[in-house]
């Protein structure tokens, strides 16, 4: 497979990008492929348009990172940032001004399994290009663009010995403003004095302390094979209306959890009160209300999706996308943070092999999903490589014992490895 079509940008210019995070989708003859970022930074320019035919080796985007140390002395060509008015981007990547000519390119696991998807793997090429570009750009100052920054921002940067090339401007036409410099300074300086808690850190600290001190928690774990889910996902996404949010692994997980909760209603309940008190009770929930752990700036939020059992996968994808989006923007309503019994925490492709999550206060269980890895398994006496993850289920012992938890988990995995899905 040599070429593919760019279906969708998952990240826009100006968005922060984490290494490993998918930032665009390609469609090959056989499948949809997500291309992930190889660097952490922010997306400075999209070089390919939606629907463009792309080939292995194409440059897809510029990322800008904070790596400026190696370029301290060379004359700089500031990367062109957001302005539509700045003409031709330099063909050579900007010199070592801290902008590594990063492309997101990574071979997704499926490709290694023979899935013929176009991989635009350029991580190594990119860094080589960057090194050579450090010299070429030095002799091509004509393509350099000025850093736009306000006078007071310059002054503060000078006082802090901060190189403006390393600062991202959020002002009009990408101008670096005072707040940008302040942010950059804060970001670079580790605190040396005790830091008062932000409200987010306080909330998380309170919740986790409360959970660990009042809920007796135990863990059961099992591996899951994603083969079936991946096939179903591809099939479903191909049928979606353009522009609709794509179905992801998390949507399958949510639907599976909902089914499992309804099958094991004992776990779809919460413990109320003090165990010694006569008022203590186990309160059943009506319907599957599942929280999704979302990492936000300096903390986390757990929006609840209510009545997941009623939602097909496509619908779930929309609800999930909306919830996550609003969580990231701080626009969740209070009702969205209440009423769940179960949460899902998936740290994604760059997460650990396995981890244990802490039950949210007011809930009874949480499922932690380790990263997907190609794993050698024995099936029917033969050796196979399958995409697998470790699932860890943490449970409130006041609501359920080990046996119930184990049965629940096994049933969950059966669903995930099965074929009965509601689209």
């Amino acid at each position, binding site marked *: 497979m040599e070429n593919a079509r760019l279906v969708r940008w998952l990240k826009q210019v100006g968005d922060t990008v984490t290494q490993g995070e998918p930032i665009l989708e390609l469609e090959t003859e056989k499948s949809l492929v997500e291309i992930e970022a190889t660097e952490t930074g922010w997306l400075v320019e999209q070089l390919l348009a939606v629907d463009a035919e792309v080939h292995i080796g194409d440059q897809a985007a510029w990322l800008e990172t904070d790596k400026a140390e190696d370029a301290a002395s060379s004359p700089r060509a500031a990367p062109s940032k957001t302005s539509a008015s700045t003409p031709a981007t330099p063909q050579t990547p900007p010199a070592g001004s801290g902008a590594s000519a990063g492309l997101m390119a990574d071979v997704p696991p499926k490709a290694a399994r023979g899935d013929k998807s176009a991989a635009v793997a350029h991580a190594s090429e990119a860094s080589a290009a960057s090194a050579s570009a450090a010299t070429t750009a030095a002799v091509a100052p004509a393509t350099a663009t000025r850093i736009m920054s*306000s*006078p*007071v*921002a*310059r*002054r503060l940067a000078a006082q802090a010995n901060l190189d403006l090339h390393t600062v991202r401007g*959020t*002002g*009009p036409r990408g*101008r670096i*403003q*005072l*707040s940008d410099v302040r942010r950059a300074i804060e970001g670079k300086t580790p605190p040396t004095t005790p830091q008062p808690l932000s409200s987010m850190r306080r909330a998380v600290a309170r919740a986790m302390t409360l959970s660990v001190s009042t809920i007796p928690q135990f863990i059961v774990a099992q591996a899951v094979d994603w083969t079936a889910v991946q096939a179903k996902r591809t099939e479903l996404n191909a049928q979606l209306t353009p522009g609709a949010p794509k179905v992801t692994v998390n949507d399958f997980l949510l639907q599976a959890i909902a089914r499992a909760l309804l099958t094991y209603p004992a776990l779809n309940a919460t413990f109320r009160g003090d165990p010694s008190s006569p008022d203590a009770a186990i309160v059943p929930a009506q319907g599957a209300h599942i929280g999704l752990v979302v990492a936000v700036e300096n903390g986390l939020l757990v929006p609840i999706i209510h009545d997941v059992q009623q939602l097909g996968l496509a619908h779930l994808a929309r609800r999930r996308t909306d919830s996550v989006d609003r969580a990231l923007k701080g626009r969740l309503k209070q009702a969205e943070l209440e009423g769940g019994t179960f949460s899902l925490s998936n740290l994604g492709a760059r997460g650990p092999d396995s981890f244990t999550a802490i039950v949210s206060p007011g809930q009874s269980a949480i499922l932690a999903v380790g990263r997907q890895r190609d794993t050698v398994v024995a099936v029917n006496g033969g050796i196979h490589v399958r995409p697998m993850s470790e699932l860890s289920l943490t449970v409130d012992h006041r609501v359920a014992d080990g046996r119930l938890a184990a049965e629940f988990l096994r049933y969950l995995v059966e669903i995930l490895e099965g074929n009965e899905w509601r689209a």
Partner: protein
Amino acid sequence: MSQTFIEILRRALDEELARDKAVHLLGEDVAAGGAFGVTRGLAQKHGETRVRNTPISEAAITGMATGAALCGLRPVLEIMFIDFATLSLDCLVNQSAKYRYMSGGQLSVPMVVRTQAGAAGGAAAQHSQSLEAWFIHVPGLIVVAPSSPLEAYGLLKSAIRMEDPVLFIEHKRLYTMREDIPATLELPPIGRARVARAGDDLTLIAYSAMVPTALEAAEELARSGISVEVLDLRTLLPLDMATIAASVSKTHRALIAHEAVLNGGVGAEIAARIGSELFDELDAPVTRVGCPFVPIPFAPELEHALLPGRDHIVRAAREMLGTQG
């Protein structure tokens, strides 16, 4: 006790006439009360020699006020519309402003020229202008533009006590504005601006009728979390750069709003000074809101389309704050 702008001016003049025998009022119809009623009753109370009507002779009466000021009177001359100050210009610019300097300090001209400016619905091009920018260009003059009844009361009294010629520019639209005047009042100094509203994100500089508009804009911006500091200049010449500098050094953004035409307006002078004296404090370009380069038209729709208002200020402020807004 609440009074309108006009009532407060009358009260200030009444008190000054009583306080200082040198104070004399003159102008077209002033003894009869004046075109806007400001001097009503004052001739009856203080005598026709202290409050005198003049014929329609702006050039001569401005000269007479100046000559009398040279000789120990403190004339308060009323020029009905600032648009007619054009007829007074030879005297104001070539004589009143320069007498002290040209005489090497032998003489001074303690006179006040009260006039009014601004568009107020249908007065059209020759009765609606804001021409204060012409006068800040003349060394020797003082130019004051009060923004409310309380301000007008104090500033007029301060103006009458100045030893130099003061152009006191009222605004038509403020004439009906009401305010309570406390029993005792410190007279605001000429040449000192006032912080009408404290804020942190942006300095909004205004004067005259634009100050109430600026305060409305600040209130609206506050609802979006933008904290605007509103400066009421009060005196346009001399300009209080110290107060402007303190504010812009805090907010790092300056927005100037006036009703007058932008081209060559007072805002241009302030912007130039901020640009040169406060360059390193600026986080955004200095911005001005003012009237486009068009005479004030007659039809209400056209007039309304032209005049800068609260929405223009809000929009400009948001643009200046960019992604932060």
